[in-house]
Structure formats: C-alpha cells, structure tokens
C-alpha cells in the first residue's frame, strides 16, 4: 500500500507541475515578490528594511495560504471532472490511498513553500544585517498550519460540490462572516430585544461559527509575537495547539471527503 501511496504522490506532483494555471499563479507571485524586494533594495533604509522583511513574509504567507488552499481543490475537482479517478479505483488502490496522496502532496508542497518563505526572509535579514528573529519561523509555521486547514477544507468541499461553488462557499460563508453576523445579531437583540426570531438566528450563526474551520487558529494569542516577530515560549505552545487543531481538522475533513467520495457515482 505504501508503494501505491508514493506512486500516487509522484503522479500528483506531476499534475501540479504540469498545470499551466498553477504555473502562471506561481510565476505571478514570484514576479510580484521580486519587484517588491528589488524596490526595497534600491530605496529602503535599515529600519524600513525590517518592515519590508515583515511585509514580504506576510505577503508571501498570504499567497502561499491561497495557493496551498487551492491545491487539493484543484486536484480533486480536476480528477473527478475528467473522470480519470475510475482508472485508479478500479485497481487495487482504495480511495483512502488516493485521497491521502492528494492531501499529502499538498502538505509536502505547503511545507516546501513555507520553508522557502522562512528561509527567504532569513536570507534577506542576513543580507541586510537585520538580526534573524524566531518570530519569522513562528509566522511561517502558523501560515503552514492555516494553509493546511484551508487545503483540507476546500478539498472536502470539492468532493461534494462544484469547485466554483466550493470557493464561493469558503470565501463568502467562512467563520469570520458568521462571527461578525453573530456579533451584529447580539447587538440587535440587546438594542431591540423584541423580535423572537433574532435569538434563533443568533444560535444558528453561533452553531455555524463553531462548525466551520478556523484558518487562523489562536490568532489573538500570538498577535503580539506576529507584530514584533519575537516569539516567547508561550507563543510556541500556542503554535503547538494550532498544530493539534490542524491535525484534528485535517483528519476530520479527510474522513468526510472519503465518506462522500465513496458514495459518489464515478461514471
């Protein structure tokens, strides 16, 4: 089975490597990053450079989050839509292995991408003579954790619905939206008080808020570390918790994806 897992991961990697859309997005990101770095090389001061490094780290992290988040969605929906999955599952290769290879390959790419981001910012610090802060690695690892949650969540959505619907759902109906909605409903209940439907809506939004995955777990606990890029032992403990959350959510969405994939008619 391990052999089949590696064979599938290798094929997934070929899928990502040969996909023109992913290539264009990657190149676009590299171009934007390069322009921003060259610009700061020419015009930046030493104090400004620290801000630039932080900005590069944030920008690259956001890009990597979106890129990695889309990988599983892209792979699952492409294989489902071009119906090539039936060539895999009519061989002694169970859906567990194939789905595992999709998520593992996305995880490997995410790991490599965030390693490059952390390494790149460390290199910039070294070139510009800025002390390398452990906070760089904390931010990169937190970014990796969030990107993996997004990858598993979008992967699951792409099994159950059209990829465009999946993206719309993830963008428009995420936990942040329901958090804001609940806050607004609570304010409305406090100010008007009379409408009996409002508490029902509030409970429903709270349920959805609790159910939907958080892409940036425990963000408020490491906000100071992310701002100063200086991580304390407490911040690393929070990172461990975030890692645990990612593993749990990943396992949950893997199982859900598998459940729905097995019930799908693969014609």
């Amino acid at each position, binding site marked *: 089975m391990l052999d089949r897992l590696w064979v599938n991961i290798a*094929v997934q990697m070929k899928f990502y490597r040969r996909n023109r859309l992913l290539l264009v997005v990657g190149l676009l990101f590299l171009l934007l990053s390069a322009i921003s770095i060259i610009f700061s090389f020419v015009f930046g001061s030493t104090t400004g450079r620290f801000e630039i490094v932080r900005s590069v780290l944030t920008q690259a992290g956001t890009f990597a989050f979106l890129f990695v988040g889309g990988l599983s969605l892209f792979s699952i929906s492409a294989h489902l839509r071009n119906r090539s999955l039936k*060539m895999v599952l009519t*061989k*002694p290769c169970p859906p567990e292995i194939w789905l595992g290879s999709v998520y593992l390959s996305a995880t490997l790419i995410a790991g490599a991408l965030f390693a490059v981001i952390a390494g790149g910012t460390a290199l910039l610090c070294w070139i510009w003579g800025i002390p390398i802060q452990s906070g760089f690695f904390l931010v990169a690892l937190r970014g990796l954790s969030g990107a993996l949650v997004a990858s598993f969540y979008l992967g699951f959505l792409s099994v159950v619905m059209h990829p465009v619907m999946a993206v719309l759902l993830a963008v428009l109906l995420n936990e942040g939206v329901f958090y804001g909605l609940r806050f607004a409903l609570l304010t409305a209940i406090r100010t008007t008080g009379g409408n009996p439907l409002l508490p029902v809506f509030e409970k429903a939004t709270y349920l959805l808020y609790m159910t939907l995955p958080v892409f940036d777990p425990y963000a408020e606990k490491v906000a100071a570390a992310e701002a100063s890029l200086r991580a304390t032992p407490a911040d690393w403990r929070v990172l461990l918790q975030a890692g645990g959350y990612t593993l749990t959510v990943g396992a949950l969405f893997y199982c859900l994806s598998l459940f729905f994939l097995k*019930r799908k008619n693969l014609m």
Partner: protein
Amino acid sequence: MLAAEDVTVRFRKGFRRRPIVALDHLSLRVQEGDFLALLGENGAGKSTAMYCFLGLIHPTQGRVLLFGQRPELGGRSYGRIAYLPEEPHYHLYLTVEEAVTYYARLSGARVTTAEVGSVLERLGLAEFRHLRLSKCSKGMKQKVGIAQCLFHQPVLLFLDEPMRGLDPIIVREFREILANLHREGATIIMNSHMLSEVEALASRVAILDRGRLVAHDTLTNLLRTEQDHYSLELAGADALPPYLTIQSRNGGTVQATMPVGSFDDFMSYVRERQLKVSSCVLTRRSLEDSFLSVLRKEKPDA
C-alpha cells in the same frame, strides 16, 4: 464470478432533475471462463451495467457480487481485474509511458521500463512514449488502455467498447490477445457495437433494451444455427430429394434451399446423377439478424 441480482439504477438528470431508469431489474450471472458480450442500442444501459459491476456506481436497488462479494472500490480483488473504459478518461497530464507505468504499478505489477517499452512497441506506441495523453488521438489513448490491461494477468476483464477508434491492424492484434486470454481461462465482459467482433469472440450474449435485459443466451443459441441453410442452384434435375425446398424453377434450372445437415447426402446425390451445381451458398443467420429480431420483438413499432 459475477452476479447481478435485480439491479436497478435510477438517476436524476438535468435542471429539472428528470428521473431516468438506467437499469431496470437486471439479473445476470457470469461464470468463470465466460466471454459475455453486452449488446444494446446507445443508452440501453450497457456502460451503466459495467459501472455497477465494477462498483463505480451504486445500484438504487438490488446487489452486485464480484468474486462473491460486494465490489469495494480499490479492494484487493481488483488486482485480478482489468478495466478498459469506453471513453479514454485517463490522466491526460501524463505521458504515454508514465500512464502505462502508473496504471500497471497500481495494479500491483512490478514493471520495468524495458517491459513497458516492449508493450508499447507491440501496440505501435513506442515512438509516442514521451507524448502527453492530452496530445494523443483517441485511438492512441485506447491503445494505452489496452496496454495497461496486459501487465498483471487479469482473470476478469471489463472492456467497454474496446475496438472503438482502433486501426484494423490493432483490432486484429487485440482480437488475438483477447482470444488468447479467454483460452487461458480469463473471463471477459465486453460492451460493443461491433457485432462482427462479438460474433468472433463471445461465448454468451446479453441484450439490453432501455435498461432491461431482453435476451441472455449462448451465442450458438442466439444465432439459432439450426436455421442455417444452403441456397443453391442446380440444372438438369428431375426427381429432387425431399430435403430440398424449391424456391423457383426456370426451365431446367432449380433454385432451392437445403439444411446444413443434408450437405453430404446432397453431394452424393449430385455425384450419382452427374448434375451441374452452378451455385451453393451457405446462408447463416448473423448476430445482427438475431440482435435486430430481439429488439423488434421489444419494440414492434420501431
């Protein structure tokens, strides 16, 4: 080896979710060593039946048993199966060589580059080994499908329109491959519209019409070989033997038909009387005739 028991598949299609019965209470058994051909018009449910057998779609009602168990996608039993899909739905981003190696390795075969090369050579794909499947013609993709069936010595083959898009040389070679596999004991289930291929290869035939099984018998029974006869034309005969059925008389020339079994008697009769036979043609009922007559029975207005 394979049993479908009262299998019904219903889909909902289109914006209005119109219900469609793709398979209607299909019951079918395939024994070890059978070469079963599934025949039917477009949309009769042949491919749906195959998807059901393979576990790719779940019956709304009834059950399918593959090697005595419900098909569990990707299970160990699939190591004994080869599947060639109707449409070449392969991993289009892979090259010919990569795809064949990938599918073979998934089947459990430990293939070397040389082994893959030799199969590609045999199927005339060697020069395209580095071409991506997205750039290949339909026929070439079909050959890739055939190649991936040949590595792990399958005991049960599912072939969905296997000859479609193939050139005559490869059709002939593939026919020989299938005949050999069948001779060696493999069980084959094939969907095809090429009745001549079915007639040449299959041992049993099942005919589907609008999802229903309307005929399932051995090829011999379906062809009703007892109805085969000779149409002949002979001159100078006066007293004709009783097994000849006269169709017409034109002066001294008689046009008649004769059962296949009377051929030897007829030859003796001709030799004794020194008669001149100007033509003697074996008229066989073809699978096409049987197929059409079964369908006409189902749809008299068609």
